[in-house]
């Protein structure tokens, strides 16, 4: 893809290269803080996802990186170049807008050639043609945006941005308007394009599955702050807050006081049961803790297992067979409902019925502990259910 060569920028253009860095960035609208003291580093060439519920400040963060909004405080840098305060057209950053924002009066080709033309590239038409080829839309180059389907418009929006070979490409929920099938298809396509052109992608979404499947690094945002950041499997395996535990996948949670230590494990008492959490997986070491375990890590038993260290008796509320797995909803002594996924490894009829008493066990190595935060738990659940 050497065809995307970058010749000298136009007046005022900042030729910046390197990692994207946000340093203590805050954005307030009146007395409302949309983004709160955000510090972030995105390595060059990585696929970074910003995940969070509606209104948590994702778009505002992107707009500040694009220069469409100026931070109230803090700095934004690419490599060592400080971009704070510069205009959008001076930044080596392009945006794929949530609503695509294609120019309705221009053809697809002219839409894509817009950026290179403004920057005085001699072969703007050639670059536009290559970019359209990359998103497999060359055959529609002469059409107007209104004559394209939603998915096609989305690809044009991507082409129009990547044709400029920006240092950072910002994608603001670009797949939000697509149906599930097209969405999956576009996710694969975006991933392919990213690895092909090797740009830094910052992908905003409130779909945790999308973030997990696409990104190298996921940052979970809530109330204008980053709750946790890391590789998808890291976030899933070891959530550090209640919000993350519920927003990224599902978690079974229960709170109680820490009662002591057992070697490298922290022991807590939740609803009359002693549970152990590896101390490296526990974010608190005294006082109250919220114990968590993922649904697929829990085993379900019809008889009390022999010699198991920690087990919980529960009442089955619902059983649903989904093919590869069976999903149980069980009520634990505290009255909370836990989810349990059992893979259907054996072909045998399910003998557990709603109303039955069962015993739950798990390997303590999978447990995690997070600070108690009752608001965040409810919020994350509401945010997951909403869209």
């Amino acid at each position, binding site marked *: 893809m050497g065809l995307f060569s970058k010749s000298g920028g*136009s007046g*005022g*253009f900042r030729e910046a290269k390197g990692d994207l860095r946000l340093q203590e960035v805050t954005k307030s609208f009146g007395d409302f803080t949309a983004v709160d003291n955000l510090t972030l580093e995105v390595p060059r060439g990585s696929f970074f996802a910003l995940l969070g519920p509606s209104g948590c400040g994702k778009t505002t963060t992107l707009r500040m990186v*694009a*220069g*469409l909004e100026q931070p109230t405080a803090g700095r934004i840098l690419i490599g060592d170049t400080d971009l704070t305060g510069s*205009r*959008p*057209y001076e930044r080596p*950053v*392009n*945006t794929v*807008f*949530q*609503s695509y*924002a*294609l*120019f*309705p*009066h*221009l053809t697809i080709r002219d839409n894509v050639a*817009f*950026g290179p033309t*403004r*920057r005085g590239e001699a072969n703007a038409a050639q670059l536009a043609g290559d970019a359209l080829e990359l998103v497999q839309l060359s055959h529609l180059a002469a059409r*107007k945006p*209104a004559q394209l389907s939603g998915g096609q418009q989305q690809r044009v929006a991507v082409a*129009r941005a990547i044709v*400029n070979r920006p240092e950072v490409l910002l994608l603001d929920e670009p797949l939000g308007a697509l149906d599930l099938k097209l969405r999956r298809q576009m996710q694969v396509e975006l991933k392919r394009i990213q690895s092909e052109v090797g740009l830094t992608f910052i992908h905003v979404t409130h779909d945790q599955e999308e973030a997990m499947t696409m990104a190298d690094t996921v940052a979970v945002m809530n109330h204008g702050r980053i709750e946790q950041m890391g590789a998808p499997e890291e976030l899933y395996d070891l959530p550090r807050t209640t919000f993350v535990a519920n927003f990224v996948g599902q978690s079974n949670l229960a709170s109680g006081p820490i009662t002591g230590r057992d070697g490298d494990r922290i022991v807590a008492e939740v609803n009359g049961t002693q549970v152990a959490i590896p101390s490296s997986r526990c974010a608190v070491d005294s006082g109250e803790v919220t114990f968590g375990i993922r649904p697929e890590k829990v085993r379900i038993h019809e008889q009390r297992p022999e010699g198991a260290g920690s087990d919980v008796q529960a009442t089955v509320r619902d059983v649903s067979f989904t093919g590869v797995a069976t999903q149980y909803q069980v009520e634990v002594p505290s009255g909370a409902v836990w989810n349990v996924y059992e893979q259907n490894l054996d072909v045998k009829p399910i003998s557990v019925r709603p109303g039955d008493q069962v015993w739950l066990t798990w390997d303590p190595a999978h447990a995690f502990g997070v600070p108690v935060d009752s608001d965040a738990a409810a919020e994350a659940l509401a945010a997951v259910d909403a869209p």
Partner: protein
Amino acid sequence: MSAFAHAAGGNAAVTHQDPPARRRSWATWLLLLPGFLWLLVFFVFPLVQLFTVSLQSKYPGYPGYYYRDVNFGNYVDALTQFGAHFGRSLLFAGLATLFAFLLAYPLAYAMAFKAGRWRNVMMICIIAPFFTSFILRTVAWRQILADDGPVASTLNFLHLLPGGRITETWVAVVAGLTYNFLPFMVLPIYASLERADHRIIEAGGDLYANGFTTFRKVTLPMSMPGVLAGTLLTFIPAAGDYVNADLLGSDRSTKMVGNVIESQFFKVLGGFPLAAALSFTLMALILALVFVYIRRFGTEELL
């Protein structure tokens, strides 16, 4: 049995689909009927009437009497005797359209993007003049532009007014036309800017266009449907107008076709056929100009 059912089913499908379609088309016609009748009675019929009048000839010796004829001489007279008036009509209307555009665009732009909570106040200011009569407002302009009025006396004091006066000149006529039709220019442009997606304008900036280039390449083209509508809504009535030339212009050098038609109809005995021919010629000219204009600027992607 099943074969029968299939055959019957096929037929049934055809006959079942038919009635709703027919009913729908009847409903369409019924809804269009009042409009058609209105057009027929108040537009087509008078137009045909006007056209036949434009071809009538005078009875020699009986001033004010005509007979039915196919006399294209009226059109020849219209063009030879009143060519200057046609020229003025188109020129003044064109100038008024241009000035109205130059005034209206920034105004509409400010209303759409910058006015904030003042937007409604600005809107009222633009619409409020409609609550008083067109004639009264034009008379008021005569006061404003009068020789001893504030504008003319100030300009005279500064020795900036070559002829010494504004009224009775084409400047006053064009100013009056511009003023009177300005709202018709502002409102469509405002509407098209207002509904433009701000993200699209931001996309211009995101794609390396500075403020001015974004305006030229994105905002202005996107508002072209409004500009097109505004210029037509200004030019067409302005070209046929006679009130401004009558109240603000002079007797000779600023008369427009509208004034000639008015005087032929109401002031000259036996002027009906010529007035009708003038009206028809003006209509044809405007139609031709509008057609060329739309072909040039108004392609479907703008609508």
